[in-house]
C-alpha cells in the first residue's frame, strides 16, 4: 500500500462561529488524508474546534470579524495544525482548564485539546498574537 499523500493547506478565516463547522471538516479531512483512523480523526476535529473557539472567545473577546489563519500540514506519520491569530499574546501558564471534578459549564476546552493531541503549544507570533500549535502522530496499526 502506498503512503498517504502529503497534505498542506493554508486557510484564511475570520473569527466567526459560523466557520466552526468548516474548521471541523477541514481538520477531519486532513486527518483522514494523513492516515488517522476514525477515532483519532474525531479527536483531532474536537481539538481544532476547541482551539478555534478559544481564539474567538478568549483571544478576540467574542469579536467576530478578526483574522484567523489555519495552517495544516501532514508530513509522513503526523499531522500539524496551526491556528494563527492577531490578538494579544497570553502567557500559556495562565491558560488552564478547570478541575474535572468541579462539574460546571465551561473551562473544558484546554483539557480536551491536551487529552486528544500529542503537542499543544502556544507561541508568540510575528503579529504579536498567538499561534496555537496542535500536533498528533499517527498510531502504528
Amino acid at each position, binding site marked *: 500500500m502506498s503512503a498517504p499523500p502529503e497534505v498542506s493547506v493554508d486557510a484564511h478565516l475570520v473569527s466567526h*462561529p*459560523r466557520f*466552526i*463547522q*468548516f474548521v*471541523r*471538516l477541514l481538520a477531519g479531512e486532513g486527518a483522514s488524508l494523513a492516515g488517522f483512523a*476514525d*477515532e483519532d480523526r*474525531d*479527536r483531532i*476535529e*474536537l481539538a481544532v*474546534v*476547541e482551539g478555534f*473557539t478559544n481564539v*474567538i*472567545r478568549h483571544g478576540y473577546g467574542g469579536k467576530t470579524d478578526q483574522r484567523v489563519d489555519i495552517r495544516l500540514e501532514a508530513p509522513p506519520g503526523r499531522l500539524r495544525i496551526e491556528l494563527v491569530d492577531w490578538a494579544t499574546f497570553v502567557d500559556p501558564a495562565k491558560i488552564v482548564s478547570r478541575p*474535572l*471534578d468541579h*462539574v*460546571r*459549564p*465551561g*473551562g*473544558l*476546552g484546554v*483539557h*480536551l485539546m491536551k*487529552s*486528544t493531541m500529542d503537542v499543544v503549544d502556544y507561541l508568540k507570533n510575528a503579529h504579536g498574537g498567538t499561534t496555537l500549535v496542535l500536533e498528533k502522530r499517527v498510531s502504528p496499526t
Partner: protein
Amino acid sequence: MPGMSVTSEALPKGVLLTVEGQIDMHTSPDLRAKLRECLEKKANPILVDLTKVGFIDSSGLATLIEALQAVGRYGGKLRLFGLVPAVRNLFKLSKLFTIFDIRESREDATR
C-alpha cells in the same frame, strides 16, 4: 453547511428534544433556548435524542451541564440517549459519563 436543528415533542410524561447536526459555540444557543422552554415548564423528564448528532464541543457540553443543573433544582431528570461513538468519547474524556443519565435508546430513556 447545515448547522443544527432541535425539535420538541410533548410526551405523556415529560418532553423529548430531538437534535440533529453538531452542537458547538455557533449552534448551542438554539439548543439552550429549547432547553430553557422545557425548564420554564418544569418538564420532567427532559429526554434528549442525540442519535443524529455527530459532534459536540465544550460549548455544547456546557449547555447540557447548565440544563442538568437547572433540572436538578426542581427535582427533575435530564436523560440523554443515542450517543454516537465520537460523542460518547467526548463524555468519557470530560469525565461526565457518570454525571449524566445516559441511556442507549428512547425505550431505555422513557422507562
